[in-house]
């Protein structure tokens, strides 16, 4: 090698080549969406790198979980027992209400609502790119994950599946600028669209008339209108309502109820199957799914 005599094309030619290629990539990926299929393969190809990059964090978590005192474990355990008792009592109430609701729906000749299949997934990686709000989870096409699937945490809607790889997939969060969820106010049923604004703790609502009855602290739940998200899951809480008559619409902002910036485990939802054994459908590990079938 000799740096004085350069070989191959000049830097200018290389730059033009790379810029031309990336221009084509940007056009076909953004405007024409031609990479939806290839993205799955690309995601599978880079997933070993993602598993490697999260290894130190996983080790820290493992250490934090294993190095706890006996007393703390007992205290946690007691707390969980009390929680379970409370939840169980609520579930009993819920069963009665659900049965009543089913009867009423049958009387009104509306379709019955079944229970959705669910699967627990762990967050593998959070993107460091400030322009997109996405996370990667450790479930992929092998577990039956599909594009556009609803993802929730213990508080509310988190987002939907964007690209599916074989063992990992990418979740688009509701706070991303390209994402929007159809919601309604749980108090009075006013319909809105909650769209991401690119800030982790804010959702925006465009085109809301001044006459709409929306107050601060109203809970927004999914309306199920888009067909992507099942109905009735909490999405956000209204934080500010600004009615400036000089503007065409009222300015409404809300805060997601899901802990978007502190996600660790999420729940994937499958569409309703009309069977009423809800608890049996929760899949904790992929191998348990086979047993349930």
């Amino acid at each position, binding site marked *: *090698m000799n*740096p004085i005599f*350069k*070989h*191959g094309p000049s*830097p200018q030619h*290389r*730059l033009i*080549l*790379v*810029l031309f*290629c*990336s*221009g*084509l*990539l*940007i056009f076909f*990926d*953004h405007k024409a969406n031609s*990479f939806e299929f290839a*993205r799955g393969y*690309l*995601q599978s*190809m*880079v997933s070993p*790198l*993602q598993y*490697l*990059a*999260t290894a*130190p*964090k996983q080790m820290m978590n493992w250490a934090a979980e294993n190095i706890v005192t006996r007393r703390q474990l007992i205290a946690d355990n007691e707390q969980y027992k009390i929680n379970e008792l409370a939840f169980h009592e609520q579930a009993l109430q819920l069963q009665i209400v659900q049965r009543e609701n089913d009867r009423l729906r049958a009387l009104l000749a509306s379709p019955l609502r079944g229970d959705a299949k669910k699967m627990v997934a762990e967050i593998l*990686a*959070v*993107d*460091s*790119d*400030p*322009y*997109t709000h*996405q996370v*990667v989870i450790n479930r992929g096409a092998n577990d039956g994950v599909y594009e556009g699937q609803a993802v929730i945490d213990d508080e509310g809607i988190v987002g939907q599946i*964007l*690209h599916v790889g074989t063992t990992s997939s*990418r979740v688009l969060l509701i706070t991303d*600028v*390209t994402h929007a969820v159809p919601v309604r106010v749980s108090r009075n049923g006013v319909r809105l669209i909650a769209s991401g604004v*690119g800030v*982790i703790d804010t959702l925006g609502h465009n085109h809301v008339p001044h006459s709409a009855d929306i107050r601060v602290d109203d809970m927004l739940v999914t309306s199920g209108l888009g067909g992507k998200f099942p109905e009735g899951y909490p999405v956000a809480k209204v934080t500010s309502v600004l009615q400036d008559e000089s503007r065409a619409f009222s300015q409404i902002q809300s805060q997601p109820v899901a802990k978007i*910036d502190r996600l660790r485990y999420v729940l994937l939802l499958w569409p309703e199957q009309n069977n009423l054994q809800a608890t049996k459908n929760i899949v904790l590990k992929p191998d348990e799914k086979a047993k349930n079938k």
Partner: protein
Amino acid sequence: MTIASRLIILLTFLVALMASIMPLPLSVDAFRPDWVLIVLLYWCLALPNRVNVISAGVMGFILDVLLGSTLGVHAAAMAISVYIVAGNFQKIRNFSIWQQALIVGVLSALYHLIVFWLQRFLTDAVFLPSYLYPVLTTIILWPWVFLLLRKIRRNFRIK
């Protein structure tokens, strides 16, 4: 250029890619330095006939896939920043390490601005000053990465 030295260069890139997607707390995350850009700039200064604009484009593409951004955005920004160094490597090599750090800071700012402009063009992103925080950490990091990679290069006699 033996296979071993190729592998070592690839390994440094792999570590840089891992460092740029490693999960960090939200408060520190805004300050994450541009690991891939720093490593690319070092190899482009040291061996401009091995690592140059094409490698920058490929690394940018991999970063696009890893970050889930529109394919080609980081590739274009990375290629333009590295092109400036590839054209002036003989000048920049002779600067002192802190002068180099400032140049790397300017290139890193250019990289972030190109990414922002492309994102603005594609998805109406709004500019926040926090998008340029990585420039500071990149400037601070450059001397250390430079010394480390030079040690690696001399130790393994990568030419």
